């Protein structure tokens, strides 16, 4: 494969596309697929065939269109005018009228308004190909400029150049910690060792988070390309994607993508006629949340029990089978091709001073527009929840937004104008995390929410270190006591003490951050805790109090 061949593929693909005046893009990511988008796609194909319009109209499956709450979503693109209509909650009965409306006015009652802030106010980098290309066809990825950055990197840049670009871009790890990606790459590049590895962490396990899953389902080649570029930069020729087995669709698409990339020679030996080799293998997680922690993940790939080990030594120095290993999250790798294509200065111009670029968030909970969004770093939470997210369903009141999953915290309405970037969220006692955002209204009891997360961490703790293993069980016990109306003020003090202990003495990140949901809800919603222990009532009416308390 050389540059001309790559261009040829893109050209053929683009010509193929240009034959069709209309394209009916049906979302075939997991969310819409679960409400029948595959049947819908077949039905569209049949309808096109029946009408004999296959010369100028085609139907295809594409990646996530974002507004998951209104699935199945169908986007009708018109090539010459470059216009697009997105239909929501499409059923098999609507197929007729949508095809009817191709040349005329769109079906008003199904169409989402283009002016809807959900679509208008986003800025897409990682999600740029979503809803546009078929994730199962490498040609479509190449047609939108895919694998060109890899070519540029291999033929025109030295590894040091690549790393310089990443450092300058200011990209930080999207998995939660926000560690500067360029610095990590530099460390791995400088680490001594003949064999180095790249690992893509796709063990997304936070409740309510589905960013990485969507990226893998909708644009898998992007991640492969990012990994190959990283491999070239740090001097690694083998990559692993550690993906949780609960994502069967993502796994299937990744497998397909890897096979296609190998067949075309953009992965494998002598990529683009250079001496650079890069292989990617999949490893499936067996459902342990803690395997998202990098040392546990490495241990799991090695075939051992997924237990974390103390750091240092960091994986950059001593990782997979003792070799220097670069571990980045799916979204981090997905940013790489765009940075190479558009330059580090472009990337650094987006976002805030310390948090560059965009961030993908998964909106879930009591919010109108549940789904996947991408906004520049520093967008305020108010903008995300009330404008893009469409606010809270009518009749209820916003209470808090939970960011960062079981390691994060809650943010109340007083702090909604906080910009969503690493530092600002940390200052509020929460974290950016991998990007899950769970919105809660006044029907949620914050003590119950804290109990939910503690229970999650208790059952997901690996059991290696005492504070996390036993502390989480004790915390869960205390919270159960409080939520059943049998708690007293001493239990609250005990919770505080345990939170401090677990945070300061646990072995890995899971343990250290485990008390965050408790600490944060106790900080912002102390009155709810006190109502539970003093008055034995649950203000939100969620907890089943054994003794009906004073009203």
């Amino acid at each position, binding site marked *: 494969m050389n540059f001309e061949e790559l261009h040829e593929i893109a050209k053929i693909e683009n010509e193929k596309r240009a034959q069709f005046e209309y394209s009916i893009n049906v979302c075939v990511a997991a969310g819409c697929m679960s409400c029948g988008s595959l049947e819908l796609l077949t039905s569209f194909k049949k309808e096109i065939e029946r009408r004999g319009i296959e010369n100028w109209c085609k139907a295809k499956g594409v990646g996530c269109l974002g507004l998951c709450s209104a699935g199945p979503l169908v986007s009708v693109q018109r090539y010459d005018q470059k216009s697009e209509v997105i239909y929501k909650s499409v059923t098999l009965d609507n197929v007729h009228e949508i095809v009817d409306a191709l040349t005329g006015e769109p079906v008003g009652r199904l169409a989402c308004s283009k002016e809807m802030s959900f679509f208008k106010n986003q800025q897409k980098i990682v999600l740029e190909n979503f809803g546009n290309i078929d994730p199962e066809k490498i040609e479509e990825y190449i047609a939108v400029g895919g694998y060109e950055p890899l070519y540029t990197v291999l033929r025109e840049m030295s590894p040091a150049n690549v790393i310089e670009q990443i450092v300058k871009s200011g990209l930080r790890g999207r998995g939660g910690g926000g560690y500067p990606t360029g610095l990590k790459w530099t460390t791995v590049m400088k680490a001594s060792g003949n064999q180095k590895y790249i690992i893509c962490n796709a063990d997304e396990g936070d409740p309510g988070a589905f960013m990485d899953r969507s990226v893998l389902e909708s644009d898998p080649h992007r991640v492969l390309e990012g990994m190959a570029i990283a491999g070239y930069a740090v001097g690694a020729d083998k990559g692993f994607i550690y993906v949780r087995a609960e994502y069967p669709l993502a796994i299937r698409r990744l497998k397909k993508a890897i096979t296609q990339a190998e067949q075309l020679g953009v992965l494998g030996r002598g990529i683009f006629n250079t001496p650079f080799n890069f292989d990617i293998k999949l490893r499936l997680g067996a459902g342990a949340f803690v395997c998202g922690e990098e040392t546990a993940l490495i241990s799991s790939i090695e075939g051992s029990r997924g237990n974390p080990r103390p750091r240092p030594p960091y994986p950059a120095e001593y990782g997979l089978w003792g070799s220097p290993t670069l571990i980045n999250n799916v979204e981090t790798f997905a940013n790489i091709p765009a940075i190479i294509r558009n330059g580090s200065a472009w990337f650094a111009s987006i976002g805030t001073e310390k948090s560059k670029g965009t961030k993908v968030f998964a909106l879930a909970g009591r919010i109108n527009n549940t789904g996947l969004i991408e906004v520049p770093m520093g967008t305020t939470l108010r903008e995300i929840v009330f404008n893009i997210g469409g606010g809270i369903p009518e009749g209820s009141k916003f209470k808090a937004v939970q960011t960062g999953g079981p390691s994060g915290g809650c943010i109340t309405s007083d702090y909604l104008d906080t910009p969503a970037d690493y530092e600002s969220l940390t200052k509020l006692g929460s974290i950016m995390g991998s990007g899950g955002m769970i919105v809660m209204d006044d029907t949620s009891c914050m003590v119950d929410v804290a109990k939910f997360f503690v229970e999650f961490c208790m059952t997901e*703790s690996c059991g290696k270190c005492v504070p996390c293993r036993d502390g989480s069980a004790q915390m869960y016990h205390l919270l159960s006591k409080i939520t059943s109306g049998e708690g007293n003020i001493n239990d609250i003090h005990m919770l505080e003490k345990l939170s401090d202990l677990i945070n300061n003495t646990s072995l890995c990140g899971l343990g250290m951050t485990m008390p965050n949901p408790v600490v944060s809800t106790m900080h912002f919603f102390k009155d709810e805790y006190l109502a539970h222990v003093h008055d034995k009532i649950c203000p939100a009416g969620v907890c089943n109090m054994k003794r009906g308390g004073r009203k």
Partner: protein
Amino acid sequence: MKKVSQIQTLIIDGKEVGGKSDESILQVAKENDIFIPTLCYLEGLSDYGGCRMCIVEVKGMPRLVPACTTLIREGMEVTTNSEKIHNYRLSILALLFTERNHICSACVSNGHCELQTLALKLGLTHVEFPYIFPKMPVDATHDRFIADHNRCVLCGRCVRACHEVEGAHTKDIMGRGITSRVITDLKESWGSSKTCTSCGKCVHVCPTGALTEKGKSVAEMEKRRQFLPYLKLMRERR
């Protein structure tokens, strides 16, 4: 080629000490008679870092670090004990006592138990958390040994001794979090294990009365671990 280790000097509790660069804070402290409480650590086995008893403060490090897995560095300033660290250690010990069933008066290891000794040494007078007292099985199927999971602290010493020293890897840990448990082979009864060599190393490295010899009554089970440093030394010389 043998790795050359450099000599480093550091300060532990105000005392200037020296050690090799591949030594941990705990090793250097031991050589200099500075006491750091440990539970999962055992000389001759790999470092585990699970019990968190040996946490120490290192100047300039944002977090407390386990002394057993943290290598020394030139100019390091280590504090092995302070009120904060002491309280954390007490809480961790208390958590261990609440986790299962540690009634010393009815235990074969009474008087020879590392958990008990630590509690006495650190002055643990009471336990503030409620006891969990889970119902755990006792495996007495082996001819010579008993595994009483009620006394287990999940330090992983038996697992490491079986894997690293004996090379059998009969013991391992299954489950997650509070429900973790040491198992024989694939959770089979010890007596029917085909991989167990009945060497008894796991029994003698166990800090509590979880793994014991049969036929011992209360307070009669004394562990003999002298073989471990000896084996290690002999293997290094080989």
